[in-house]
């Protein structure tokens, strides 16, 4: 990965919505070169997708519940944790799965419309998997910062005086 690619990736990691012509100007490159580079990075799967960070709490009638579940599992011979992880991450309700060091094995993030819905998923689907030994569920009460972005950032406002030497 060269410097150019890294600079481009950092720019769109911060803002997936940044148009190619702006990226070209910011990097002092030709727009065609940038388009080509993006295509290449998509092909290499360095860029996996473009998502939007949404504060659903601001949208009417749409309150989402997120739970972080600590899962203890029995790893399987030959495939380790990968097989059971796959069994879990294939469910669309599951938004993230990480293999962890420490007192449990998998950290599973689950989204649903209500606590009951998530509770049902855990008791019916997750904890009933053969290799799952135990689950500990933590519900998220408030999101302050997500993926490096502060949700209610009052710092956005420019506090500088308009003209200064």
């Amino acid at each position, binding site marked *: 990965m060269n410097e150019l690619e890294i*600079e481009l990736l950092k*720019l769109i990691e911060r803002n997936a919505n940044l148009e190619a012509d*702006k990226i070209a*100007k*910011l*990097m*002092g490159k030709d727009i065609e070169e940038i388009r080509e580079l993006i295509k290449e990075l998509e092909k290499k799967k360095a860029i996996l997708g473009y998502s939007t960070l949404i504060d659903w709490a601001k949208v009417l009638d749409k309150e989402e519940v997120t739970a972080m579940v600590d899962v203890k599992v029995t790893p399987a011979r030959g495939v380790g944790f990968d097989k059971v992880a796959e069994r879990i991450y294939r469910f669309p309700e599951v938004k993230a799965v990480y293999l962890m060091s420490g007192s449990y094995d998998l950290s599973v993030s689950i989204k649903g419309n209500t606590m009951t819905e998530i509770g049902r998923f855990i008791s019916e689907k997750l904890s009933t998997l053969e290799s799952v030994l135990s689950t500990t569920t933590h519900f998220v009460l408030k999101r302050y910062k997500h993926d490096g972005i502060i949700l209610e950032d009052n*710092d956005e406002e*420019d506090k*500088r*005086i*308009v*003209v*200064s*030497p």
Partner: protein
Amino acid sequence: MNKVSYISRNVAELKPSGIRRFFDLAAQMDDVISLGVGEPDFVTPWNFIEQSFHALEQGYTSYTENAGMIELRKEISSYLQKSFRLDYSPDDQVIVSVGASQAIDLALRTIVDQGDEVIVAEPSFVAYAPAVRLAGGTPVTIQTQPEYEFKLQAHQIEEAITPRTKAIMLCNPNNPTGTFLSGDELAQLAAVIERHDLLVLSDEIYAELTYDETYTSFPSIDGMKERTILISGFSKAFAMTGWRLGYAAGPSEIIAAMVKIHQYTMMCAPTMAQHAALEALKNGKPSVQEMIESYKQRRNFIVSSLNELGLYCPNPGGAFYAFPSIKATGLTSAEFAEQLLQEEHVAVIPGDVFGESGEGYIRCSYATSLKQLDEAMNRMKRFMEKRV
């Protein structure tokens, strides 16, 4: 009682800064996009702020040594060594000041006798010439020229020298032009300076903010360290303008004299700011790097946008200012800036407030978010379409 008559003649004769008038105009409008701000748009990195909290909680609320905390002077000294290969002893060759501005004032008051001349290359930071006057000296201005990309030429210094010339102010990279002088270019100036035995006040507050070439600090040039007072601070690269923290480094005799003025007029720089600066030097590099990368991108963006608009703008090598020519519009700098502010609510600074050769140019600071810059360029496009 005629109060005005009590004001010293020196101060009364001082012209108010041309920037001030613009500030008053712009302050009355809402939705102004300001490219008129000479400071970073970044808030001070959190670890610097947090360190200052910690220092306050620990009860560090009293004076420090006049020259600044020795721990901070040590860090400054090692920073200058690592970044610019400069050797300054933290014990007697570094002073911590209230912003680089105070360091300039201290340096001038230290070296200037009544009637001494100090050469100032304009367009320049608006405070240089007034600071020379307040110190009792006479500023002798040189106008750098657009055909040399506003780079100061050795022959210009030569022409400005008189028997009363004591010192010259240099600022590299330059505010407002963004002009960057390379090591070779500085060496040419150094030759004249040495021949005429001048002292140099080298304002290097933007030294970190250079984008294309390696930076050469003026005192690192052969023979220049003994005749240079290096001035810098935390405002620009470390995004700490409001903390008011700068420093000077130079020959111990001169620094000692500066400390003498400082102890009688200021005591010391703010203690909590000194603690934040300590953290900035110890652990601030990643944040500074990130800001530099962002400034570079925005420079590329604004320079290419301004050129597209027909406002000729060479690539500035440093600082966070673009200095495009507005001559194509047939307007004066002041007219351009005023009309742009009235019609499109975009604030830029007319180039002539920084010196007469700045006429025909405007200073646009790109230390503002990409979103704001983009919108400013759209508004300026509309403005230009009505005129050219």
